């Protein structure tokens, strides 16, 4: 057997905590005395929670993050293997129903520090300006209480911190560029680019993705091994575990893993006092805090608030509007498969690589509003077999035959907007988990506009697949990305939180994660979730500094100084925007001049 170039690979080291092969958690973690109140307790250290604790800690506050899953040591815990990565997901029971039940588990949420950002594919498109006003423009759903321009500086900030690699010119929505070079194309990206080009459809390749194309701090660049949704052991793909958690710990945040928060406690004065949780030994504990922020994902966040019902809030904490758990959204995620005479080998290169947003916006020629994006995906063998069991109805010898042709197949994902509907909900089931807490029941029904988008998206993607040269094309219906369930709004009567995530009902209770999205566009939600988290952090910090008039703030300064240190000096190409931005100051943060 040949010896590896650099000798046998070392692997995990005793007494050292690695996140990626080079990056070590290099500071001892602070431990706040039990029983002592802290400034902030954050429930769930995932996409949003990771960004949040980093900022609050760096601003000098005492922060405790309680995370239901483990604090991964990536060398020890993660494997370059599909079946061996089962433990990355939230596998605890949830009940699903409705006319179009949503498969969860590996298809939806993470459990462990980093949350869903551990196993996301890493597509990081921004929302379009039109996404913030679909009620005004299209007469459906609701407008956001903020505009694209309010979020734009945070998009730019997060694109540097993640950092996002992509083209210098990204043509859709508010056109912009990326500071890290786009990635090389793999076989699936070649399919999308070839098909789109033959049909005259604009397409970008190599990003935007949350994957390093050059080293960043102590994170190496991508090695194109294609295991992104099994967790990137390389540390090239961002998760908040590798991008923000190390800095959070350096600045004194305490992270308690394997701690499941059971309820939020309400004091007599109408403010929350902290949370009750089960620690890793199953012991009930209490953590008091001046502010509680729930960042548990679009299912667990409503579940926790519903499970925290108490006198005065019989229908769930912060639910005076009755909208908690409602307006849950998923995105249409149909995958179109094409078989080519030539080999593709779709397991190489990050599955998230190329996309087109040419069909994203409302088009008056359609019989539906809003639209869809088309993106590369790259299922590994087990996933591909499971897709084909539906798409082709393959089993037995047919499945063996299709799988022997694995290397001839390419796969493209539709990502379509589903509007928020009141009957798509998270409620409590009559089944309990190991802690005796009622589990979530997720009910999902597609409506007419959603069906039409799915149909149009599949049709267009099949057309592209054929134009690329596929001789056989098939598709599988599915969904991706749950958001909503504790939506933000301008009015306390039809939303749970305001645009900063503060619950209307309880001044020191916040929600900060995907559940606050009122609509979702056809962009993968991860970047938006992290951008909103940075904005909520800025608000919390301003509010604290400005204790005299806490609720008055609507415009708050963007705190560029809170970025992790490796971000300093990293630039962002400045394009002349077609649209004037009302947030001129945001464009000139210290990090953006690079």
């Amino acid at each position: 057997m040949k010896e590896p170039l650099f000798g046998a690979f070392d692997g995990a080291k005793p007494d050292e905590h690695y996140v990626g092969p080079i990056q070590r958690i290099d500071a001892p973690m602070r431990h706040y005395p039990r029983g002592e109140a802290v400034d902030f307790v954050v429930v769930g250290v995932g996409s949003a929670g990771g960004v949040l604790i980093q900022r609050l800690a760096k601003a000098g506050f005492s922060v405790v993050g309680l995370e239901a899953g483990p604090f991964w040591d990536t060398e020890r815990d993660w494997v370059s293997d599909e079946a061996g990565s089962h433990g990355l997901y939230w596998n605890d029971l949830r009940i699903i129903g409705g006319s179009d039940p949503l498969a969860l588990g590996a298809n939806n949420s993470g459990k462990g520090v980093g949350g869903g950002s551990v196993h996301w594919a890493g597509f990081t498109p921004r929302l379009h300006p039109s996404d913030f006003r679909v009620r005004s423009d299209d007469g459906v759903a609701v407008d956001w209480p903020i505009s694209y321009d309010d979020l734009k500086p945070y998009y730019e900030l997060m694109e540097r911190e993640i950092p996002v690699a992509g083209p210098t010119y990204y043509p859709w929505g508010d056109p912009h560029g990326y500071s890290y070079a786009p990635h090389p194309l793999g076989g699936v990206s070649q399919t999308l680019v070839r098909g789109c080009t033959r049909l005259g459809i604009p397409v970008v390749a190599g990003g935007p993705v949350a994957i390093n194309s050059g080293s960043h701090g102590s994170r190496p660049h991508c090695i194109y091994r294609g295991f992104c949704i099994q967790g990137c052991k390389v540390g090239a793909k961002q998760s908040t575990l590798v991008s923000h958690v190390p800095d959070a710990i350096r600045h004194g945040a305490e992270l308690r893993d394997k701690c499941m928060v059971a309820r939020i406690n309400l004091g007599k004065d109408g403010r929350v006092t902290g949370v009750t949780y089960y620690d890793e030994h199953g012991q009930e504990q209490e953590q008091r805090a001046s502010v509680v922020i729930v960042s548990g994902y679009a299912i667990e966040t409503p579940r926790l608030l519903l499970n925290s019902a108490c006198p005065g809030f019989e229908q769930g904490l912060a639910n005076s509007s009755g909208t908690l758990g409602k307006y849950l959204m998923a995105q249409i995620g149909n995958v179109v498969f094409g078989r080519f005479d030539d080999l593709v080998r779709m397991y190489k290169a990050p599955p998230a690589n190329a996309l087109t947003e040419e069909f994203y916006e409302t088009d008056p020629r359609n019989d539906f509003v809003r639209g869809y994006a088309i993106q590369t995906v790259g299922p590994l063998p087990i996933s591909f077999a499971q897709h084909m069991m539906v798409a082709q109805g393959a089993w037995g010898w047919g499945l063996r035959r299709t799988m022997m042709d694995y290397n001839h197949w390419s796969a493209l994902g539709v990502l379509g907007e589903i509007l928020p509907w009141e009957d798509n909900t998270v409620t409590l089931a009559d089944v309990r988990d190991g802690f005796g807490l009622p589990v979530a029941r997720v009910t999902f029904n597609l409506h007419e506009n959603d069906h039409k988008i799915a149909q149009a998206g599949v049709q267009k993607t099949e057309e592209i697949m054929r134009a690329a040269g596929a001789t056989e094309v098939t598709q599988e219906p599915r969904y991706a990305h749950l958001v909503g369930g504790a939506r933000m709004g301008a009015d306390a009567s039809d939303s749970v939180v305001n645009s900063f995530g503060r619950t209307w009902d309880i001044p020191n209770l916040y929600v900060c994660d995907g559940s606050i999205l009122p609509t979702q566009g056809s962009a993968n939600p991860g970047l938006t979730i992290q951008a909103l988290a940075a904005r909520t952090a800025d608000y919390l910090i301003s509010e604290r500094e400005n204790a005299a008039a806490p609720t008055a703030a609507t415009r708050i300064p963007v705190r560029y100084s809170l970025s992790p240190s490796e971000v300093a000096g990293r630039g962002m190409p400045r394009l002349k925007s077609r649209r004037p931005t009302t947030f001129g100051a945001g464009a000139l943060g210290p990090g953006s001049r690079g």
Partner: protein
Amino acid sequence: MKTHDTRSQSSQSSQSGQSGQASQMSQQGDAERIGGVEVERLPRDPRTGQALAPRMQPGYYPGFSTLSQQSFWDEATRAVVLKRVNQPPPITFFDADEARVMQTVCDRVLPQDDRAPDRRIPILNTIDERLASGRINGYRYADMPPDPQAYRLAIKGIEAIAQSMGATTFTELNLRQQDLTLKSLHDGHPIAGDEYWRQMNARRFWLMLVSDCAGAYYAHPWAWDEIGFGGPAYPRGYMRLRDGQPEPWEKVEHRYEWEAPPESLSDTMESLSDTPEASSFTPGTH
């Protein structure tokens, strides 16, 4: 949970890949065999109609071996994959009768008769281990019982179908009848056993079963060799990303023609994408 002595059963499976065992046991010993496998179970050469002898490594990448690359894998991955190859978990969830039926079911859902008997991939053990450990995929349909119960119900339902065809048990049916039984689950209309299938959605069970079988088979490095998948790739990574090119240690494709055994029904595919259960067990993508 039932615990019974299955040590002999599980050690058999770990030595020789258990798939062949049950298949051989279910038939009389006088059938014609090639390479230890009854001829009627073997895929054919479409030009000659001759049965193709079982191979050490079916598929179009002869000589490709992911395991030969293991010194390039990281330690944690190597440990997980080698354990999968060398120590299939023992059967503890299914009792002996259930295991016998399920073994034959797995042999039809993911047939391995084209594999040399000692190169078969244990599937039932992996499913059994999942059910024994209570591991689920994070959700349950409102119209489905918990997974372990669903499997037990399905075994009863499958036995009821076998009895409606005049056999005492599924393993006694001929290949065609076994496939007909399973195809009726695929179609969502089980042939018999209403009292069991009424308690759950048969097609959802089918999708869980195929998912579980595929999850066990395509997790195995021998299956990766068969389909030309590069396997674990950290810390080395890939360098030849375009045009389906192989890495220096991967192999080019050498195709051969084959047909499923004539008695089998599973090589004709009917898409389930338009059925209400279509997105039941879908993996994550983007």
